[in-house]
């Protein structure tokens, strides 16, 4: 009986927090700025902090994943005599799956955790209360620029990740393993389509961005304002963000490419 009661309490708590976070997201995104110049300045600052500062980890990871994919692809394709298809393999894997998913996971770890910790610390040091007491809405001033910056930066980061991965894979397969450069690019050109492959990848990373940034800012906003509470909220952001990306990826892949 106790187990059933706990289960119901858990489900109730989940639905309640989902509703609260939904209202939080709606209020943050649809409360228009009073001064547009200031809103744009805050947005640009967050683009720098969330997007530009994530570039290094995205570029380095993209390069290594592209190189590993090229090595693995070459070793399998060469046994069928079709090593020239390594370009196709690289492009489709990165644009459809690894670009959006790995960028999302890295983004949750790097920018998501930073957003939660920053907002949590603002709460603990009464900065959010201070905005409220000045009559300045913290959702409009603190949360909205971070949400919008994260949502717009992640698709761009995913595209950069895929581009760097393809370039690094080309370096390995053409310059090191000796695949003919013409067939490397030709196989890619024949099999990659803008509307199905590139656009679906962008849509995926856009959806992942909303999920990760929403979780990150909400966790920071509702965390217990103590060092332990902020630590727990940061961990929850990374765990919940990563799981949300993987779950959503399955659903989106089934919807986009599941027409068998």
């Amino acid at each position, binding site marked *: 009986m106790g187990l059933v009661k706990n289960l119901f309490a858990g489900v109730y708590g989940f639905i309640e927090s989902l509703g609260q976070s939904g209202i939080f997201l709606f209020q943050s995104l649809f409360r228009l700025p009073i001064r547009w110049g200031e809103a744009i300045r805050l947005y640009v600052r967050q683009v720098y902090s969330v997007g530009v500062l994530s570039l290094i980890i995205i570029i380095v990871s993209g390069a290594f994943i592209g190189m590993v994919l090229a090595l693995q692809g070459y070793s399998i394709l060469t046994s069928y005599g079709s090593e020239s298809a390594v370009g196709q393999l690289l492009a489709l894997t990165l644009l459809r799956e690894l670009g959006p998913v790995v960028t999302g996971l890295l983004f949750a770890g790097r920018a998501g955790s930073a957003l939660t910790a920053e907002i949590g610390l603002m709460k603990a*040091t009464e900065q959010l209360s201070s905005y*409220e*007491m000045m009559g*300045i809405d913290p959702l409009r001033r603190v949360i909205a620029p971070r949400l919008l910056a994260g949502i717009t930066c992640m698709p761009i980061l995913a595209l950069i990740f895929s581009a760097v991965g393809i370039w690094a894979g080309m370096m390995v397969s053409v310059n090191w393993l000796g695949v003919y450069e013409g067939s490397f690019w030709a196989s890619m050109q024949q099999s990659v389509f803008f509307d199905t492959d590139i656009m679906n990848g962008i849509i995926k990373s856009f959806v992942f961005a909303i999920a990760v940034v929403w979780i990150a800012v909400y966790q920071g906003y509702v965390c217990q304002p103590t060092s332990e509470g902020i630590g727990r909220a940061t961990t929850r952001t990374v765990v919940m963000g990563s799981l949300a990306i993987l779950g959503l990826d399955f659903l989106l892949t089934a919807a986009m490419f599941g027409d068998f």
Partner: protein
Amino acid sequence: MWFIEGFQDLHERNEFSWRIFYYYAVLVSIRFCYRESSVEVYIDVKNLSFSRGGRAIYDDVTLQIPKGKITAVMGPSGVGKTTLLRLIGGQVMPNSGTVTVDGVNIAQASRKELFEARRRMGMLFQSGALFSDMSVFENVALPLQEYTDFDKTMIRDIVLMKLQSVGLRGAAHLMPSELSGGMARRAALARAIALDPDLVMYDEPFAGQDPISKGVLVELIQRLNRAANITSVLVSHDVEESLSIADHVCLLSGGKVILSGTPEEVRSSTDERVVQFLQGHADGPVAFHYPAPEYREQLLERN
């Protein structure tokens, strides 16, 4: 409004004295247009009950805070002094009863009315709560940028005047992490008074301050109150400092107001709870021990 436009012409002459004159003229105009309250009671708390996490913080509390005076709200730690400020500011809502600030019932105010009421309040948080990503200058300038149409030169002048009044004009360029505790609190005070509010709430302004900083803060609170006729609510358990500047004192204990009167009335009170608080006795009506099972029984308990 024609008179504000007229002052704007004066301001465009770009002379410092005209700028200052323009600034105060606008403020006086705003006060003249939007304020009509002449009530003596600025904050009226009636039959307030508030609980958090199943624990009753306030139980049917009634108190009044007079206009233009310094009111010290005192009591032991954990009695809910900061919560009272949050109730006045509308950051938390009462379970029952009313909190009326300058005629506005905070619990029933719409979001817009609440934010408008907060613009006439300034709050000095216990930690200062300066925005860590802005310099001292930007912190003080923020409310002015948010709520006025003053140009950059005007805002600069006002910020420098506010910082001058708290002795930190030279620290305008510093970041909050570069300030000492006392300086951070003074900078936060400059920000709290940036819009010349009617009400300033001080949350434990003397906590953790050295004697010099305490003296400076006492002087500043007193000067602000006298010069601008600001209603001040001072939450503190620093007895000497608070009683030295307060016009009116509310002593809280056990979720109730146990005494409300002048500092002299507080000092001469024979109520055991007041005497224990003022003289700092370890045991008394406020027990030294947190409620626990019988000591001997607990020691002898084996399981």
